[in-house]
C-alpha cells in the first residue's frame, strides 16, 4: 500500500525545543525535529545520549520539562490520548507482564488502544501471523526468550496500525535472521505510510533502513541529515567525531529527506 504524495509531505511529528531533566541532569536539551509519514528516522547516540528519554516523551510515557510536541497537527501534550490511536511504542527491553500469555498481552494492548471484538481478533491474527507468534499465543511472557519478547513487544506496538512507530533498540537480542526480518518489517511499514523512529547505537542499522539520521550527544542534537547511498563512512566519521569530541551542530539540515522508495 502506498500513500498519496500530499499526505506524505505533511509533517506527522514536530518536536520544538524539547527539554527534559532526569536524575538531576539535563537528559534532553532543546531538541527540535520533524518527521513525515513514510519516513524512517534513525536516532543515533552513545549510551546516555538521551535517545530513550526522547522516545519516551514522543510515546507519551514521559512529559517534557519544556518544549512542544505536535502530532498530526495537534498539540500532543494537551491531548495525550492521541497516543492511543497514533503511536505504537516498543520500549527498550520490551517490558511485559510475566504472568500473561502472548495472546493475553495482545488482547490487553488492543483494548488499551480502543480495539474490541472482531476488529481486535482480526488485528491479533494478522500481527501474530506476520511476526510468527501464532505458535506462542498460549505461552507466558515470563518464559519467552529475549528475541521472542522483542517480537511480542513489536506485535503490541503494531497491533492498532499506528501512524507513528517508535522503536527503542528493537534489534537487541535478535539473531541475524530476525534482524533481517525486522528491517523488512520496518521497510514495509514505511511503504504503507507509517513514520518510524528507530533508536540504536549501531550505525549499520541506521544505514540499512533509515532515510535520515539524527545524532544525539549529551541530550543535544548534533547532526540531522538525510542518508544517501554509500554514506556509511562519512556517517561513521560524524558519529565518532560527535561521540568522542562533542562535535558541533554543523550537520543539522533543515530540509528533511524524501522517504526512500521502500516498496522497491
Amino acid at each position, binding site marked *: 500500500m502506498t500513500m498519496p504524495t500530499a499526505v506524505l509531505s505533511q509533517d506527522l511529528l514536530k518536536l520544538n525545543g524539547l527539554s527534559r531533566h532526569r536524575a538531576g541532569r539535563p537528559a534532553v536539551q532543546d531538541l527540535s525535529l520533524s518527521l513525515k509519514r513514510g519516513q524512517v528516522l534513525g536516532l543515533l547516540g552513545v549510551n546516555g545520549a538521551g535517545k530513550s528519554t526522547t522516545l519516551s516523551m514522543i*510515546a507519551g510515557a514521559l512529559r517534557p520539562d519544556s518544549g512542544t510536541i505536535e502530532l498530526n497537527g495537534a498539540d500532543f501534550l494537551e491531548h495525550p490520548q492521541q497516543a*492511543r*490511536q497514533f503511536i505504537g511504542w516498543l520500549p527498550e527491553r520490551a517490558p511485559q507482564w510475566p504472568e*500473561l500469555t502472548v495472546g493475553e498481552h495482545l488482547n490487553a494492548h488492543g*483494548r488499551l488502544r480502543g480495539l474490541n471484538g472482531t476488529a481486535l481478533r482480526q488485528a491479533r491474527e494478522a500481527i501474530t501471523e506476520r511476526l510468527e507468534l501464532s505458535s506462542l499465543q498460549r505461552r507466558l511472557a515470563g518464559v519467552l526468550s529475549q528475541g521472542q519478547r522483542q517480537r511480542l513487544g513489536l506485535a503490541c506496538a503494531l497491533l492498532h496500525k499506528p501512524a507513528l512507530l517508535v522503536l527503542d533498540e528493537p534489534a537487541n537480542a535478535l539473531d541475524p535472521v530476525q534482524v533481517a526480518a525486522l528491517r523488512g518489517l520496518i521497510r514495509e511499514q514505511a511503504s504503507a505510510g507509517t513514520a518510524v523512529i528507530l533508536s540504536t547505537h549501531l550505525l549499520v542499522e541506521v544505514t540499512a533502513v533509515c532515510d535520515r539520521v539524527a545524532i544525539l550527544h549529551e541530550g543535544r542534537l548534533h547532526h540531522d541529515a538525510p542518508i544517501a547511498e554509500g554514506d556509511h563512512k562519512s556517517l561513521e566519521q560524524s558519529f565518532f567525531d560527535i561521540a568522542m569530541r562533542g562535535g558541533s551542530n554543523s550537520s543539522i539540515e533543515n530540509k528533511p529527506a524524501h522517504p526512500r522508495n521502500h516498496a522497491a
Partner: protein
Amino acid sequence: MSVVAVTRLELRRLFVRPLAWVLAALTLGELAWRFILLLGQFLANQIKLAALPGGPGYTDLVAVPMLSSLLTGGFLPFGLAELALVIVPLLTMSVLAGDRGNGTLPLLFASGLSGSQIVLGKYLAVLLWLILWLLLVLAMPLSVAQGTHLDWGKFAAASWGLLLMLASLAALGVACSAFASHPAIAAAASLMLGLGLTIINLGAQMAGVGNGAINWLALSSHLEPLLRGLVSSVDLIWFALLIALSLMLAIRRVSAERERG
C-alpha cells in the same frame, strides 16, 4: 472505556496468578470452619436461647459474627474483617508497584491513559475480586437462612459495613502500591496502616474514653455500628473520605511519575 480496559487487564492478572486463588481457598476454608463452630454453638444453646424473650438469634450469634470478631472476641478463628487486614494488602501490593518493577507502567502512560484512569481501573479490579470473595463468604450464613429466622436488615447493614471496609482497605493498598518501589514494601505498609487504623483507639477505649478524635479516626469505631445493624451517615462519610483520600494520593503519585519519570 479506558478504565474498563485497565480493569480487565488487572482482573486478568489477578485471576491468572496463583496467589489470589490460594488466598481465596485458604480464607474460605478458615471462614467455613468458623461458620461451623458458630452454628454448632448456636444449636447447642438453642433451647436456652428460645426461653429468653427477645434474646439473640441466628443473625446475632452466627450470621454477623461470621463477618467479624469485633462483636464476639473469644477463641474462635478470625472473621472476614480480620482476614481482610492481611488479604487486601497481599492482593493490592503488585497493582502499581509490580508494574513499576516490570517496567510496564510507561506502557499504560503511552496508551494515552491518565493517572486517574490507571488508578481507578486497577482499584475497580481489586474491588471486584473482593466483592466476589465477600459474596462467597455471605453465601455460608445465607445457605441456612431458609431454615431459620434471619434479620435481613441487620445482616444487610453488616454486609454493607464489610463491603465498605474492604473498599477502604483496597484503596489504602492501592495508594501504598503507588508509593512503594517494591510490592513487598507496599504489602507491609498497607498491612501496618490497616492494622493501625483498626486499633488506633485501643488505648483510649482501655482508658474508658468513649468518644473523641482518636475514636473517630479508628476504623473499628465505624465498622462496629454497622455490624450491629446501625447505619449512620457519619460512618458512611468516614469510609467515603478514606477511600477518596487514598485514591487521590495514588492518582497524584502516578501522575507525578509521568512528570518525573
